[in-house]
């Protein structure tokens, strides 16, 4: 959606205007490409305007629906993941998990902070495209081990000491793209964990090396279960490309849990065109994944985790009302640790950016010590303090979630339902499959 200010008349004689098509950003990008011959690689998620959970509201209680007392009547937030096949499902106290982020893209201190914060409130963290570190395993009571196309650092011992396994097919920032870690972040330790030369630009594979398609994936999952004695829940993570079909196929392949990551999901590094132009918004992806699960009577039997742009307890509540069992947060967790801190404004300015816009997560210069491998920057992040900040933030999300659930009369957050929601825009009504506020109309489903 274009900035309407481009219509502004900039001279009074001829009424010259800026172009909508060739807006200042487009012109900047053309000029930069012409000058450097390089496409833009950056971190963070989609920055463009998209339909989001903000376009939905809860109805709240009324004469026909009575609310629960805040602070007095209990509102349960616990969730069990992996009830379908795993002998040891995961029990979490809150339905908000930490998404997969690699050691390499993040500093060891950042990984430890995530583990500390998540463990304090009874939820899980997830490894990433760089293997499992002791910092993370040691400080995470519940740790999900990602099984990625690159298989960097993959080994059966870590597989067995994980609490769950997440087979990564794709991620929201770049469905169809592999991991990327530029040379400046490939330190000796990162290189060793990934069996790569130090300092090279590492571009991970985008497809798994030993399976293709859903039938192979079913066999791969069988192998992972055999290696771990059928104990660990197996998640399948997909980028929001075709979430309806991918969810069906993930269930068919034997997933205990499906993770759907919408296009607002961030990455440490990929092409800007990938981040902004591939995949569908989280709002649309949740509806499609839930529709798939309900269509085969697997909703709640295979758990659904939704991620991509979750910021507040309201986002969590809306995702759950649409049918998710839990959510995962990545960017929000990094902000809680200290990313985008206005107190670092002077340093952001030196990097040519500002707090809130900082996106060069690939560059390894993060003044907050999070997306870096430089020891002097990493040392700025105190894992105990940062972990506490994350725990605080997760508690607030949980309290907000409970507030909204109680307002809708729910004694468990999983009792939130689509009927509690209305959409503020036609786009959101169509994507989320809930009626436009003030009507019974769901675009494509009638009721107008």
């Amino acid at each position, binding site marked *: 959606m274009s900035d309407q200010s481009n219509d502004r008349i900039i001279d009074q004689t001829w009424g010259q205007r800026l172009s909508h098509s060739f807006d200042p950003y487009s012109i900047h990008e053309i000029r930069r490409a012409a000058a450097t011959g*390089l496409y833009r690689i950056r971190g963070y998620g989609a920055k463009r305007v998209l339909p989001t959970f903000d376009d939905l509201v809860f109805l709240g209680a009324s004469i026909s629906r009575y609310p629960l007392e805040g602070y007095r009547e209990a509102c349960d937030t616990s969730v069990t993941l992996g009830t379908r096949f795993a002998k040891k499902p995961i029990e979490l106290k809150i339905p908000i998990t930490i998404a997969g982020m690699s050691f390499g893209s993040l500093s060891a201190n950042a990984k430890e902070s995530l583990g500390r914060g998540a463990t304090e409130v009874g939820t899980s963290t997830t490894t990433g495209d760089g293997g499992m570190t002791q910092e993370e395993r040691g400080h995470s009571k519940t740790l999900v081990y990602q099984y990625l196309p690159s298989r960097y650092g*993959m080994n059966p011992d870590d597989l067995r000491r994980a609490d769950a396994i997440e087979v990564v097919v794709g991620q929201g920032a770049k469905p169809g793209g592999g991991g990327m870690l530029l040379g400046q972040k490939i330190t000796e330790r990162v290189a060793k964990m990934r*069996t790569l030369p130090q300092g090279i630009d590492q571009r991970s594979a985008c497809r798994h*090396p030993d*399976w293709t398609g859903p039938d192979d994936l079913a066999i791969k999952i069988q192998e992972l279960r055999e*290696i771990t004695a059928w104990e660990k829940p197996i998640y399948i993570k997909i980028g929001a490309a075709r979430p309806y079909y991918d969810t069906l196929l993930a269930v068919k392949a034997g997933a205990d849990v499906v993770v759907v990551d919408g296009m607002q999901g961030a990455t440490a590094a990929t092409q800007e065109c990938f981040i902004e132009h591939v995949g569908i918004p989280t709002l649309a992806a949740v509806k499609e994944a839930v529709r798939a699960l309900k269509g085969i009577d697997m909703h709640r039997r295979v758990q659904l985790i939704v991620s991509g742009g979750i910021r507040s307890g309201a986002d969590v509540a809306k995702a759950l009302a649409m049918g998710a069992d839990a959510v995962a947060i990545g960017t929000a967790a990094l902000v809680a640790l200290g990313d985008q801190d206005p107190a670092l404004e002077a340093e952001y300015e030196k990097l040519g950016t500002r707090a809130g816009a900082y996106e060069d997560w690939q560059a390894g210069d993060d003044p907050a010590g999070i997306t870096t491998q430089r020891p002097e920057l990493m040392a700025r992040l105190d894992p105990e303090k940062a972990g506490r900040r994350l725990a605080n933030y997760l508690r607030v999300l949980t309290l907000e979630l409970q507030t909204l659930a109680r307002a809708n009369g729910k004694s468990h957050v999983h009792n939130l339902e689509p009927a509690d929601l209305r959409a503020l825009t036609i786009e959101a009504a169509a994507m989320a499959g809930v009626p436009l506020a003030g009507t019974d109309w769901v675009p494509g489903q009638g009721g107008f």
Partner: protein
Amino acid sequence: MATPSTATPENIVSLDLADQSLREVNGALQEARAGYYRVRNPRGVHALACGLDGPIEVEIDGHAGYYLAGMNKEARVTVQGSAGVGVAENMMSGEVWVQGDASQSAGATAHGGLLVVEGNASARCGISLKGADIVVKGSVGHMSCFMAQAGRLVVLGDAGDSLGDSLYEARLYVRGNVKSLGADCVEKPMRDEHLKELDELLARARCEGVSASEFRRYGSARSLYNFKTDNIGFY
């Protein structure tokens, strides 16, 4: 590591997939830390003998399906037939011997140990190899050692298209023809240290009558290690 010669009919533990479930067979093998095991009636079952964790000997009495001996540690697994996709995938150590042919992605991402294929291996043999050694006595298919990071691939026969595409530090030795080399893979001179390591590998894989001097060596030109827009033709 135990060797087959130590086994006598009295101390062979027999497992039979006609009577036992895959979970029972794998469970017995995964818990074992010593001994010689024979698995009868494999019938091409998938994920057989995966996740082994000790210096045991396993003989598979027939053909195996996908991911035979996946993530193997220390065990020596011999299949008296052919193996499906991803045999010895992500092997950490030990040995896997395929008496017949191997399907695609043989030895994918393997970190250590030795995989020997007496017959041919299909496409993507040694894909993303991370330190293991693979010896194929027949030929390998296209895209073998794609993005291979470390370890060695030895091919006594021919290699298909795009050998070693986007190769990192793995070393490839081919005795026969290479149909084509992948992006950034080049032929390199055979120096003394290469002849020596190849002779050792040939001996370990029991390639009698084959000399290291018959092979050519291929490796990474390392020109794609850091992104350069001038390399656009490769991307």
